[in-house]
């Protein structure tokens, strides 16, 4: 039971990460690797401010610096015309140094014994639930506004958005800022949840986010943006519960988490194509056997 509750809590907090990944990957249609750096950026920023006695300010600051990191990636893509994957990698790499220097040059930092948003509210589950749902609802509402719609349009058909006198460069930067702000918030909450921050915890986080988004879509269906945001959080919870129980029954060693995530994402992303190829092969076989049948009949 403790295990289940613990993994639901983690699922909700990482659900905010999934929201961020959903914004960039599904809505803006750009796989953004900045996330690997901005997650730790949020963690480090929150940890330092939490250690200084400002847990709430820490989370707010995490959102701001995360958004700033996303904006920088956006500017590299739109103003300096650097390939979007490479822009993410550049910012992520640069952030590694930034994250270390925020934590005073140390690779990890403990905030054990400090007040966090979880200790202040008393119930970890409640905080995680309220934050995940309210964030998903806020982001969902935002994408129904005019500005939100321009971002969805940019992801769908950039050329048309430009033709509608909308500055697509700006909408891209905005979407990347929102996505990375959410990811950094998730990182900050994780720091307060586990009471430490580690500079290496961003590695592979983008794949974990993608896995959550995809699991949510596969198991809960695809139906519009607002629904999609909630399935991303749902997918994150399901992902955490599955992982927790797989580890519990010693199905996998505890360090196999990332390989499993990578395989899940690989299967899910290749799924539609593999399905199509299989279907085509099947219909070709059917046609061939039909031709054979007819030939035999004619003879």
């Amino acid at each position: 039971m403790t295990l289940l509750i613990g993994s639901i809590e983690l699922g909700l907090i990482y659900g905010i990460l999934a929201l961020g990944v959903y914004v960039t990957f599904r809505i803006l249609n750009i796989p953004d690797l900045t996330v690997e750096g901005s997650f730790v950026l949020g963690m480090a920023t929150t940890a330092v401010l939490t250690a200084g006695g400002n847990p709430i300010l820490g989370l707010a600051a995490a959102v701001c610096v995360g958004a700033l990191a996303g904006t920088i990636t956006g500017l590299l893509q739109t103003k300096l015309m650097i390939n979007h994957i490479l822009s993410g990698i550049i910012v992520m790499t640069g952030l590694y140094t930034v994250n270390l220097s925020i934590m005073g040059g140390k690779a990890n930092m403990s905030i054990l014994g400090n007040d966090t948003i979880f200790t202040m509210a008393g119930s970890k589950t409640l905080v995680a639930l309220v934050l995940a749902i309210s964030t998903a609802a806020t982001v969902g509402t935002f994408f129904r506004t005019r500005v939100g719609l321009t971002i969805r349009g940019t992801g769908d058909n950039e050329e048309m958005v430009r033709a509608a006198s909308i500055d697509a460069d700006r909408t891209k930067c905005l979407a990347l800022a929102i996505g990375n702000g959410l990811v950094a918030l998730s990182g900050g909450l994780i720091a307060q949840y586990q009471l430490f921050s580690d500079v290496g915890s961003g590695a592979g986080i983008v794949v974990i986010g993608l896995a959550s988004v995809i699991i949510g879509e596969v198991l809960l269906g695809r139906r519009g943006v607002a629904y999609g945001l909630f399935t991303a959080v749902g997918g994150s919870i399901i992902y955490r519960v599955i992982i927790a129980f797989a580890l519990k029954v010693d199905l996998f060693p505890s360090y196999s988490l990332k390989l499993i995530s990578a395989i899940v994402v690989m299967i899910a992303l290749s799924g539609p194509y593999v399905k199509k190829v299989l279907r085509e092969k099947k219909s070709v076989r059917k046609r061939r056997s039909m031709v054979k049948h007819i030939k035999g009949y004619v003879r």
Partner: protein
Amino acid sequence: MLKLENLQVTFEKGTVGEKKALRGLNLHMKEGDFVTIVGSNGAGKSTLFNAIGGRCRLDEGAIYLDGVNLTGLPEHTRARDIGVLKQDPLKGTAPTLTIEENLALAYGRKSKGGIFATNRRDLEYYRELLSSLDLGLEDRMKTPVGKLSGGQRQAVTLLMCTISSPKLLLLDEHTAALDPHNARKIIGITEKIVKEKNITTLMITHDLDMALSVGNRTIMMDEGRVILDISGEERDNMTIEALLESYRVKSSKRLIDDRMLLS
């Protein structure tokens, strides 16, 4: 209204593949003019539209719209006053967004409806516009545009281009990818909207019959210049044969076949 002065555009400048797409093109249009453009492939028709829309740089020359110099302004700034419709029905709409969301994107800052993209007041207006198309789309406003046929998508795109009453409308063979029935329908809708909103319009077409019957003026382009410019009585008396004949006389190219102009 629209004044194009000595437009010059060169592709691949300074390389062996250098190609002069526009060589000092001049054109003046009055407000409400509906000009059709004909010319063979490579005459510079699409380059002209790209130059006006801000998608390619001018080497030389200037573009004035309503007295404002557009030269050097970015594409999205010009798009406030210029609507562009292309041949491919897939290009002008966002497929996963619904019809009403696409219209809301295009209506953009002209809407006074508040911060939400689809509000009741705007939706009423969109419904009215859609029902004027006579395609039954007003009952399918929540349908993603990707589910519509090519003709329906092009009709929605036409509404999107004109919804914020641009000063200038550029139609680049916008019916060429449609079957004859839908093409006629879209042309009818085009003429109606252009007339109602009194939008100055340029239309590229390969259909010479359409070029002479739609609009009030026809120009013929060749090698990046205007080689024929007819309107009024001269245009009314023009036949397709005479148009082809004048192309033969004035074009720098040796025509192998009349089809060059038509394809």
